[in-house]
């Protein structure tokens, strides 16, 4: 799959402080390098442990180009293994999800344990005494770690722990989970899947971009009564924030908290419609802390490179090629909060997915963006907005909600990843 070039791509030239080169969106060689360096070696989001609650539960996913299985072993541990038979390469598990004691290859019947180790080869007398079963397993990801239910893996080796990768952005995942009175999420409402013809980076870039909303979403703005309209039209209250390591956020919570109205972020639902949730949260966190969370709500943030926490939606991507991507969405359900969850499902249907009110606009704009890039001049994508007005707060770079601080942060991390010489590491 990997294409080599005689002269390596120089990311110092292509990714600069205030602009990136449009080849990053169109060049298949660069795309291959992204898959290798960012997706096959770095930490990526694979799924959530609530999707595989019991031993033998599994879902099939993709990391970059590579099909994988995320499963729960008999010991309760989460495994991520490549979905490939060690014998002749058949995709072992064809189903999207299920429960199984073992994984059996449909081609010649090789049987694997949930952690990928080879249990049985049919008609085993065909192999000599020297055949080493332990050398013929389904190959697991080099690193698999779970943070508050979010399963991340690095197929080869990222060179860092998940803790180092997430850094301070753990706080963003905490903010989601803490909205549950049990401190846990359930991602069990199924995934909506969306295919679009644009480079995968267009959507993470766009997800924390506060500049496009008035225009891309003008139909939503003019046809609905949205809390976002007030926030955006009220000016500079929300901010964007660089959490380090390419993790970025547009923080509407700043504005919500200033207003002090609970659930403004949740379709402005009245607290009286969620009595059991309010009670459970107050019992767990105390009145004051609970109220603070009711006002601030969940984050709107990207965990580099492929996870988007979009209020009560969890979103992730499979890049397909330089010009095509698949994006998946599910509502973030809060354990112990059925009143919230019923509304959350409905809000997800309104906001994200191919038939919703918001994301189809982002997707069609991304497709037109990709089409526009075919006009090769000017060569650069400008990312200079707000450079002059960024400031430091709690050790993080912060700026106006419409500033490209977030895109610059994404690309700083991107450049670091792309400049890592993997041959030197392995």
């Amino acid at each position, binding site marked *: 799959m990997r294409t080599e070039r005689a002269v390596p791509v120089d990311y110092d030239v292509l990714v600069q402080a205030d602009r990136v080169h449009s080849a990053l969106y169109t060049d298949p060689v660069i795309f291959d390098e992204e898959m290798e360096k960012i997706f096959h070696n770095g930490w990526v989001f694979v799924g959530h442990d609530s999707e595989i609650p019991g031993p033998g539960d599994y879902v099939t996913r993709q990391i970059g180009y590579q099909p994988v299985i995320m499963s729960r072993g008999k010991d309760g541990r989460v495994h991520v293994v490549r979905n490939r038979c060690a014998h002749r390469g058949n995709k072992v598990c064809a189903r*999207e999800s299920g429960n199984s004691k073992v994984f059996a290859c449909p081609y010649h019947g090789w049987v694997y344990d949930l952690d990928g180790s080879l249990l049985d080869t049919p008609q085993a007398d065909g192999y000599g005494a020297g055949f080493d079963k332990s050398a013929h397993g389904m190959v697991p990801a080099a690193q698999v770690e779970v943070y508050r239910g979010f399963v991340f893996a690095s197929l080869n080796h990222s060179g860092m722990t998940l803790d180092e990768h997430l850094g301070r952005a753990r706080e963003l995942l905490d903010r989601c989970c803490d909205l549950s009175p049990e401190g846990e999420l359930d991602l*069990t*409402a*199924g*995934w*909506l*899947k*969306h*295919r*679009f*013809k644009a480079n995968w980076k267009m959507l993470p870039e766009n997800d924390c971009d506060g500049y496009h909303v008035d225009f*891309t979403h*003008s*139909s*939503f703005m*003019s*046809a*609905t009564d949205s809390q976002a309209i007030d926030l955006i039209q009220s000016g500079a209250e929300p901010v964007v924030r660089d959490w380090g390591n390419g993790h970025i956020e547009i923080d509407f919570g700043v504005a919500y908290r200033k207003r002090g109205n609970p659930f403004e972020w949740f379709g402005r639902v009245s607290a009286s419609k969620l009595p059991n949730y309010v009670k459970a949260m107050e019992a767990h966190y105390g009145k004051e802390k609970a109220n603070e969370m009711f006002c601030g709500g969940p984050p709107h943030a990207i965990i580099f490179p492929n996870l988007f926490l979009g209020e009560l939606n969890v979103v992730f991507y499979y890049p397909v090629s330089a010009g095509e991507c*698949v994006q*998946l*969405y*599910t*509502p973030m359900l809060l354990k112990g909060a059925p009143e919230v969850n*019923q509304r959350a*499902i*409905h809000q*997800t*249907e*309104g906001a994200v*997915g*191919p*038939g*919703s*009110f918001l994301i*189809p*606009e982002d*997707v*069609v*704009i991304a*497709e*037109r963006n990709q*089409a526009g890039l075919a006009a090769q001049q000017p060569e650069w994508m400008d990312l200079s907005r707000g450079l002059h007005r960024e400031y430091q707060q709690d050790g993080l770079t912060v700026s106006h909600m419409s500033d490209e601080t977030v895109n610059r942060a994404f690309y700083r991390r991107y450049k670091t990843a792309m400049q890592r010489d993997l041959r030197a590491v392995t």
Partner: protein
Amino acid sequence: MVSDQLLRQISDFIHHEARLCDESRYTEWEALWADDGHYWVPRAEGLDAEKQVSHINDNRRRIHTRIQLLLTGTRHSQTPPSPMRRVVSGIVVEAVDGDEYVVGSNFILLELAVQSTHDMHVWGGRTTHRLRRGGSGWLMAAKKVVLVNADEPIPNISFLV
């Protein structure tokens, strides 16, 4: 179960509704809905809409919002609207429930994504209408569309399906 004459009336309505969708005649389409109408595009047959997320799960109010969005002229994902034609076939009255008729049909739909890629998308699926008499003819109390590829990665479906 129903007379030929009634089946003819029902199938005329189904074809008319399909044509309004194909031609993005938003206001006329909205007028076909009963006040308690429900427009549903689940990810698969047999899913519980309260527990599983759907592509589209509009109550009457949200149907109105959907149409309002399309009428702004800046719903970029349908600006311009996709030219479409569908073939509807196999119309059957599956059940009579009080004064409502549950009507099943299959469709194949060609959609040209003129607003972006200019790709021709082929869609297919089964529609279940719940119809009742009202206004000057029939009204839709419910419309459920199960796309053949509902649980696969699909392009935008912001047209009327």
